[in-house]
């Protein structure tokens, strides 16, 4: 098991903002994740959160995603989780949030009409 450094990458494309999360999303840095997710709406474009490289997410991480979805709804923007890893899916399913979030297979699907 290689130690995965935690990081947040933001990619501003023409039609969307993509936040790539990496590593273990836990209480020690979810405040940063939350800020990054909420800040992504500045551009006024749909937001995707890429979770394919996340090995573990705790409920404070999930809470940040929920707040993102809430903000997206308020601003009428699209919000989707992109390719969540198995670990993330398991947590989403535990709280039945897989039925609440829009989950897409890749970033390209983000801009496709819902």
């Amino acid at each position: 098991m290689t130690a995965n450094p935690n990081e947040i990458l933001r990619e501003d494309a023409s039609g969307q903002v993509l936040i790539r999360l990496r590593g273990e999303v836990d209480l020690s840095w979810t405040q940063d994740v939350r800020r990054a997710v909420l800040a992504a709406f500045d551009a006024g474009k749909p937001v995707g959160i890429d979770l394919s490289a996340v090995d573990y997410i705790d409920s404070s991480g999930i809470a940040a995603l929920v707040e993102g979805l809430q903000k997206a709804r308020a601003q009428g923007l699209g919000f989707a989780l992109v390719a969540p890893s198995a670990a993330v899916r398991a947590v989403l399913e535990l709280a039945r949030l897989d039925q609440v979030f829009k989950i897409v297979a890749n970033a390209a699907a983000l801009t496709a009409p819902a």
Partner: protein
Amino acid sequence: MNATAPLIEVDKLDAWYGQRQVLHAVDFTVTSGEIRVIMGGSGSGKSTLLRHLLGLQRPAAGSVRLFGVDMGKASERERLDVRKRIGVSFQGGALLTSLSVGENVALPLREHTDLDESTIRIMSRLKLEVVNLGGFQDLMPSQLSGGMVKRAALARAIVMDPRLLFFDEPSAGLDPVVSAELDELILRLRDALRMTIVVVTHELESAFKIADTITVLDQGRVLLTGSVAQVRAADNERIQDLLNRRPREMQVDAEAYLRRLTQEQT
């Protein structure tokens, strides 16, 4: 911390209640990711062992280590750090009756984190959803049924995403359907949140369903620690008595018996 180091290490633990010794040199080890069931009849010492694991009682002899920290010798700060990483669901729930269900679940977050109020709200309600109590956050504990209290207590126990979860008698006093649901939930928690779980129970059915490994306690001694299959196959007479719900055969020590009957009160 080393990933392969055991989360719980108990070494030659003795415990006394007054003159009576309730634990005799108990050794007990739990490694990361397993579901361990501590099984035993009443009076087997399983509750006392749990109280020592939680640091509620100090060992008379021997040591208890959680995450490598000796709970008997740790400073207050170290103990607090350990306690932030464990969750406990008590037998009777032990929800604070002066707080609503939602406030109970949010209590550890409020006390130990500087999270945003909205994050705390979402996290605690999320955990209520996980235990199928979504929308019940404004009720008071006295308004809940027994099964709901247990589930709310579980939500509070897991709200900080503990690495290590203790569950005291999950199925005691519940109807079979609710208790089966709780067993299912314990398995899902381990898989999704990667928790290590220690369950204390006397319910065989539930123990066999959820356990990776079982420790059988009897009269303060560890009879056996092993997989479900090993426990089922054990030829120890007391274990077979437990499995088959046979009343134990009392060996009568004539001298001691007579003394108990006739001795004047001390």
